[in-house]
């Protein structure tokens, strides 16, 4: 099981803070995105946004990064703090 979180504008667009992917093997970030869209087709336009950032276990990663079961995955828009 991979925990998946969404933040800020993306959280509002998906109307979802957190969900999970029931996988027992490692997958790439890109595969995780595909699985999320398979289970929530209405998320496609938002999750395909190229400007979205991805973090695994609190580190920024790219689409080829390998996510393992029990990892924490998060998608969010470019940050705007400070």
């Amino acid at each position, binding site marked *: 099981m991979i925990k998946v979180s969404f*933040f*800020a504008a993306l959280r509002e667009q998906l109307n979802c803070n957190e969900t999970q992917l029931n996988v027992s093997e490692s997958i790439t970030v890109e595969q995780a995105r595909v699985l999320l869209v398979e289970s929530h087709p209405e998320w496609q336009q938002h999750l395909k946004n190229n400007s979205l950032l991805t973090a695994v276990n609190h580190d920024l990663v790219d689409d080829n990064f390998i996510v393992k079961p029990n990892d924490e995955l*998060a998608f*969010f828009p470019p940050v*705007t703090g400070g």
Partner: protein
Amino acid sequence: MSKTNIPPHLNDRIVIQTQDFSLSEEVNLLEENNNEDGAVVTFCGRVRNNNLGLDVKGLTLEHYPGMTEKSLQKIILTARKKWELGRITVIHRVGKLFIGEQIVFVGVTSKHRGNAFAANEFIMDFLKVKAPFWKKELTSEGEKWLDAKSSDTNKAQEW
């Protein structure tokens, strides 16, 4: 779990909080019993009354708990590798903030001012593009998530 933990430097202070902070208390913490460092540089970011021509009434700051702290720790660690630094404090507020309120504080001490200036600006530049905070502004035209600025991305890339 492949979580990599960076042990925080003894002289690092990272705080994420909803409440306000006292700039003078923070400077005291940076200077107290610290007679090696002749230079203290602080940055304080505040809520402006105007953004891209729109009246701003306030903003809401969302963050990613856990990642925020880790991200700031990595930025500080990178700064410590680049420059000889003394104490470093980073405070970022979250939640609802109004015009003129303090949002973020970065304080850096060093033996030499050049290092303190550079590290402080470096930390702010990377906080702006790496630390998971998001601002939603309440303007005269309603609530709106801020767009990231390419000028911030460019500024960070210059280091």
